[in-house]
């Protein structure tokens, strides 16, 4: 019996370690392939350079960093209010019968493959933007709208969990003191669950920065620095996704170097989210 226990324990340990090893290998490989190029070009020229013309040896990804944040910011502008409203409704205002149907529907939003979002955006949203607002339609605005919907499940499910985790006494106490239901939600519950909500937003942000397929289809992928929400843009992820097919030599290494920058940005965001959700226990 004892030996069997040990055996199971060790097997699980090996399995757990192997998944971490794969993560470590991926990290190592990305850095090994990309770092030499960053040194060759110069970190400053690589990160702050404005020109991306691999065939002429120009590797500047600044427009892509800016575009990544621009698209993500736009997505948050749509995703946060929608997500929060949805969370409050789900937690506090939904009759159970509707919640039973609504919750799975929101989870389903996360299960739709991103290529479907991209295709829908390309066929429905892009022509609308082009016809009513101008520009090529393949633009930051279209991308932000689609991304805003894609990050909803992340924001809703995590902030809902953090509101549900609040002690019942908070709500009961506020109501007992004579606060209305809305005052209780807005003044007591949301502030108390703040760290969880912020963590959900940061995770949504990470999801938005990392999205590739839908963005390749909707953003238009121009390498120029965007100057308005109606301009086409290329994010860090789409730069890798669109060019990896044929890249060789320095060009290929530059795509790995792009991945390093993306990796660091996402690491920072995820660490922030983890830190914030740890603090949640203390309120």
């Amino acid at each position: 019996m004892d030996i069997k226990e040990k055996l199971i324990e060790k097997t699980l340990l090996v399995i757990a370690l192997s998944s971490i090893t794969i993560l470590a290998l991926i990290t190592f490989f990305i850095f090994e392939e990309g770092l030499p190029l960053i040194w060759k070009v110069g970190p400053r020229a690589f990160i702050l350079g404005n020109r991306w013309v691999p065939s002429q040896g120009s590797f500047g990804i600044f427009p892509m960093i800016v575009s990544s944040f621009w698209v993500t910011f736009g997505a948050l502008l749509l995703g946060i209010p929608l997500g929060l409203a949805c969370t409050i409704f789900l937690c506090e205002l939904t009759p159970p019968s509707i919640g039973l149907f609504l919750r799975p529907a929101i989870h389903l939003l996360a299960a739709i493959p991103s290529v479907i979002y991209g295709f829908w955006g390309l066929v429905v949203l892009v022509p609308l933007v082009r016809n009513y607002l101008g520009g090529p339609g393949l633009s930051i605005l279209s991308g932000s709208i689609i991304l805003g919907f894609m990050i909803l499940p992340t924001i809703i499910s995590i902030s809902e969990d953090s509101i549900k985790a609040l002690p019942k006494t908070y709500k009961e106490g506020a109501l007992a003191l004579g606060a209305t239901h809305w005052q209780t939600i807005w003044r007591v519950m949301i502030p108390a669950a703040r760290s969880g909500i912020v963590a959900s937003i940061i995770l949504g942000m990470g999801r938005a920065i990392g999205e590739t397929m839908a963005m390749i289809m909707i953003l238009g992928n121009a390498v120029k620095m965007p100057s308005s929400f109606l301009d086409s843009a290329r994010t860090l992820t789409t730069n890798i996704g669109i060019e990896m097919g044929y890249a060789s030599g320095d060009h290929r290494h530059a795509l790995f170097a792009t991945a390093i920058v993306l990796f660091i940005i996402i690491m920072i965001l995820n660490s922030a989210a983890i830190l914030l959700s740890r603090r949640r226990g203390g309120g």
Partner: protein
Amino acid sequence: MAGSTSVEPFAGVLAEEYMKLHPEVQIYVQGGGSTAGVEAARSHAANIGMSSRSLLPNEKDLSAVTIAKDAIAVIVHPSNPIRNLSLIQVGEVFSGKVKNWNELGGPDHPIFLVTREEGSGTREAFQKFVMEKEEISLAALVQDSNGAIRQVVSSDPNTIGYISLGLVNDKIKAVEISGVEPSVSNIENGSYTLVRPFLFLFSGEPTREAKTFVDFVLSPPAQRILSKEGLVSILPTTALN
């Protein structure tokens, strides 16, 4: 066989056809790009390398067999009134010097360029034929396949792009270049110049199996398949019927 992703789908069709006739033979077709095709042939990693561009001076140690030709068509939306552009005009449009359709006799609206991504063989060929030393504008929209470019151009009246002639359909319009319509006969008589060869590459003598396959590819039945798939056969049209 390995190499150009432009040649790959056609080589795949031919290989399938060949394996039907010779069930004992297995042909593996892989992409990777024209440069990868050159490397594969040189290092004998593949029996046959595939390339969608002519060999560079430093690649002349390989022998090349042209299996077909592919033309690049400059395409616009069907409602676009422009029917004809000179090669120089196309170059000026794609480098961003000409920014508005009215400079070309069209409506007063900015031109939206659609191009392929860096590293694409089609883009390389377009660059060589049309742009020469000029650079394709950084403001151009970038799509990663012929099909995606066709989709964008077919849905926006203000765009201009370029794709393989074989993929032109009635949702878009191929413009004449200096008055020459991109058609099979104009490619055969040499008046349409945006044409690139599809090559099979060998380092030294091809193996016996590779040689039989190439003979098959150059035969009228295989060439008929290629021209049905949208390429321009190396045989005269009369030999295909």
